[in-house]
């Protein structure tokens, strides 16, 4: 999932459409020290969150692609399977949710048959049936705006045709629902090692049959412990208890603690910090401003929770446009980059870790690797190597070239851009900053027509799979010329590396462990080609009020709001 700032993971919906990913990310939780949860509290009360703005894009769960809404949807709706709702690495495990067990795929990974649990009801009182599952997937295509319908779910037989002509979508061969036997069978066109992950995210959360096939202005009824009572983008979101909810799996969908969950909009970052400090709000969604961190660290340390994320911040070289169509030039800039300086811009070593590679630490396929440092070998970045950088750039013959450093206008990202302008000028290039509004910067970079030479971006996992970084961001098929929905902004396509990726994807269907070894090799090969300057892996800072108990941080969904107690 692409994100613009650490907390505001609002992917411009229409922009990343058809691409990959969304979701949470990270590894184990740690409260600056090591724990990822506070002591559990009692049920009841109203949990009040504050945010700058409502989730961007549509409220419809099959369209929305923001962490902000997904953090709420996970306890109002369910998928057939779910990421285990706990903090720490356990939170990346797939567990059965609306189904009784997770089936082993048959037919070479192309067929999945699920048995649906009985007695589960939607918040409108209707009982869940297998036919609701088929209806949900038909709707996913029929609404025509679901960003990943064409890239994630088109693997279902009939999916490609549905993407082309949503109105006449027919999944009779792809999703077979049997209400009498309580089973649903999915037939895929090819084995997909990430199919279960894709069933566990909100696009695939089950909706009742009859939900209109048009964009909803408030999420339709779901099966979780809460239901949506209000969705006013100018004021607030309100969730109340679902009277029809009965616990069926603590792992997948535990009962929540607060009776009511409210997220209020329209507060600046500064105001959010102040409200949480004063106990007027329980949690701030947005990034605390850098200027207030010291104050939080000094006066409210027990209310701060810091957790690493499986995300990467990077600047992408355009490998097809001079001067960075030259490998030595790209490697030279990588050697010269002072990643500690970039970590400082982000907020310091407590909030980010320098990196040289694509995959974030703790991610499937991750093996520490950093060639672009002084004294390489340990896999960790230690210091820039300016001498080597200058030598490579001189050998590349690109010195003196004009470079536009493209970034967005948010404080931190603009500061990254300014750093690189300064660095590139120091290395002999003629660099200028091109800071665009955060709304247009990412699609602008994606479109090859704009010939962007060096572009800031960041990526947060959608689900824990190496391909979600390597294939989505650097795979040949994810470079779409002249399109603003082309996540491979480096325009990187090296056939032998793509063949390695394809092989890893194939292995992953039946042997994920072996596949991860292959992905580690892909990560190394890509890093050597230097399509990016990988800068840092961020950490997530949550700031909660004094009365919040039971803080848990899931690597997939981040702060598990419903598991916190305010009583």
């Amino acid at each position, binding site marked *: 999932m692409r994100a613009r700032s650490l907390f505001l993971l609002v992917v411009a919906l229409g922009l990343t459409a058809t691409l990959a990913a969304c979701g949470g990310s990270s590894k184990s939780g740690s409260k*600056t020290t090591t724990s990822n949860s506070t002591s559990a509290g009692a049920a009841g009360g109203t949990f009040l969150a504050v945010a700058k703005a409502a989730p961007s894009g549509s409220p419809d769960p099959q369209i929305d692609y923001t962490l902000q809404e997904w953090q709420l949807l996970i306890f109002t709706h369910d998928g057939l399977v779910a990421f285990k709702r706990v903090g720490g690495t356990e939170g990346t495990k797939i567990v059965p949710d609306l189904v009784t067990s997770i089936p082993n795929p048959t037919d070479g990974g192309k067929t999945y048959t699920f048995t649906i649990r009985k007695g589960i009801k939607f918040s409108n009182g209707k009982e869940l049936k297998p036919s609701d599952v088929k209806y949900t997937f038909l709707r996913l295509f029929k609404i025509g705006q679901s960003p990943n319908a064409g890239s994630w779910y088109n693997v279902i037989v009939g999916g490609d045709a549905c993407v082309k002509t949503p109105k006449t979508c027919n999944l009779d061969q792809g999703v077979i629902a049997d209400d009498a036997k309580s089973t649903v069978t999915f037939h895929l066109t090819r084995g997909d090692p990430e199919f279960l992950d894709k069933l566990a995210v909100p696009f695939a959360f089950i909706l009742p049959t009859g939900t209109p096939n048009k964009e909803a202005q408030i999420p339709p009824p779901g099966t979780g412990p809460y239901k949506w009572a209000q969705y006013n983008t100018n004021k607030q979101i309100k969730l109340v208890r679902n009277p029809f909810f009965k616990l069926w799996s603590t792992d997948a969908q535990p009962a929540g603690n607060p009776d009511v969950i409210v997220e209020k909009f329209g507060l600046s970052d500064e105001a959010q910090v102040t409200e949480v400090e004063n106990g007027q709000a329980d949690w701030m969604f947005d990034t605390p*401003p*850098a*200027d*207030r*961190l*010291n*104050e*939080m*660290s*000094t*006066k409210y*340390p027990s209310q*701060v929770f*810091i957790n690493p994320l499986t995300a990467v911040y990077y600047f992408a070289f355009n490998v097809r446009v001079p001067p960075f169509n030259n490998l030595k030039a790209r490697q030279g800039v990588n050697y010269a980059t*002072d990643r*500690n*300086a970039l970590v*400082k*811009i982000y*907020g*310091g*070593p*407590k*909030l980010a870790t320098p990196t040289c590679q694509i995959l974030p630490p703790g991610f499937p396929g991750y093996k520490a690797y950093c060639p672009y440092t002084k004294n390489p070998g340990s896999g960790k970045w230690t210091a820039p190597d300016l001498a080597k950088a200058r030598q490579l750039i001189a050998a590349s013959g690109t010195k003196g070239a*004009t470079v*536009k450093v493209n970034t967005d*206008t948010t*404080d931190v990202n*603009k*500061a990254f*851009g*300014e*750093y690189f*302008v*300064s*660095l590139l*000028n*120091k290395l002999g290039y003629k660099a*200028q*900053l*091109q*800071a*665009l509004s955060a709304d247009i910067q990412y699609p*602008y970079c994606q479109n090859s027509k*704009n*010939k962007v030479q060096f572009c800031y971006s960041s990526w947060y996992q959608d689900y824990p799979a190496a391909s979600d970084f390597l294939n989505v961001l650097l795979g040949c098929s994810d470079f779409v010329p002249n399109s603003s929905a082309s996540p491979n902004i480096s325009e990187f396509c090296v056939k032998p590396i793509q063949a390695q990726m394809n092989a890893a994807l194939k292995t992953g269907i039946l042997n994920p462990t072996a596949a991860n070894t292959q992905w580690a090799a892909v990560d190394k090969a890509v890093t050597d080609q230097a399509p990016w300057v990988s800068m840092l892996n961020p950490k997530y*800072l949550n700031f909660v009020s004094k009365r919040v108990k039971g803080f848990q941080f899931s690597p997939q969904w981040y702060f598990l709001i419903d598991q916190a107690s305010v009583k």
Partner: protein
Amino acid sequence: MAVFEPEAELATLDIEELGGEVAGRSPWALAGRRLLHNKLAIAAAVVFVLIVAVSFAAPLYARHIAHTDAFTSNLSGTFRLHGKTIQVIQQGTGKLGLGETPVAPTWHAKYFLGADSQGRDVATRVLYGGRASLEIGIGSAVLASVLAVVFGLIAGFFGGWTDALLSRLMDLIWAFPVYLLAISLATVLLTAPNGLRIGFVHLNASSLWIPLGIIGVIYVPYVFRPIRGQVLSLREREFVEAAIAQGASNLRLIFSEVLPNVASTVIVLLPLMIATTILTESALSYLSIGVQPPKASWGTIIEDGQGLLYTRPWVAIAPGIMIVLTVLALNVLGDGLRDALDPRSKLRMKG
């Protein structure tokens, strides 16, 4: 050249204020004497000249006093103060050690006003920023005035369709809110992939000429209106008719009879326009659509300082003070010039 003769009241006022003979002196000389007697205006002029001087001395300050480069990031840098090595960007204190804070003002040559979030010397950037703000402010005010005088003379003198066409064009520009128009133009020009190309002129997006041109153009109507009005009135005056009777050409009438009589209006308006354009430039740069980083202007420095208001307020306060002083000085100077060049306004006020 024919110029209005001072009226009797004015002569009396001049005698009272200047305390000497006024007969035989040119209006410009009288205006100069009036200005010199206005202590507040002279003080304002001195302040403005000082600000210009120190701003344009920025490279000397950077090289010989602060020993720094105002445009290069220095996030991992250190410097020596009182025998100690100090990090330019310092890790937060507190139990969790969160946040990174630039060094506070040292009140010494190095980092006199502290550092910004890129580790750059704020004092040096304020001086460089002043240079950019003044260049753009003065340049755009001059550009607006020159264009307005040309258009105003043509429209007012020829009248008819020429006047209607130029006046409607100015109305069109005036109809847009200033900042909205400036933001629209700046957004288009700054995002143009290859900068701005007009014929053989090529400006890259970071060129100071872009904000200068944008601000200059949007303020043309504000000077055009009074100039045109004055030209319309002058065209009917006896001395113009006399020149026509003597067979003077249009060009001669415009340059010899009309232009000298609108010059004082332009001179009075110019400092006020500079003040306005400096404020506009600062606002646009603050919104990231004026001067482009790593170049600095007072607006960009305030933007840089906005995120440091709690811990390092001087980053925003210093350029703010410079803007206030400059604009105040220019406004007071403008008032002084108006009093000197158009003493009737003072008479009217007395009356």
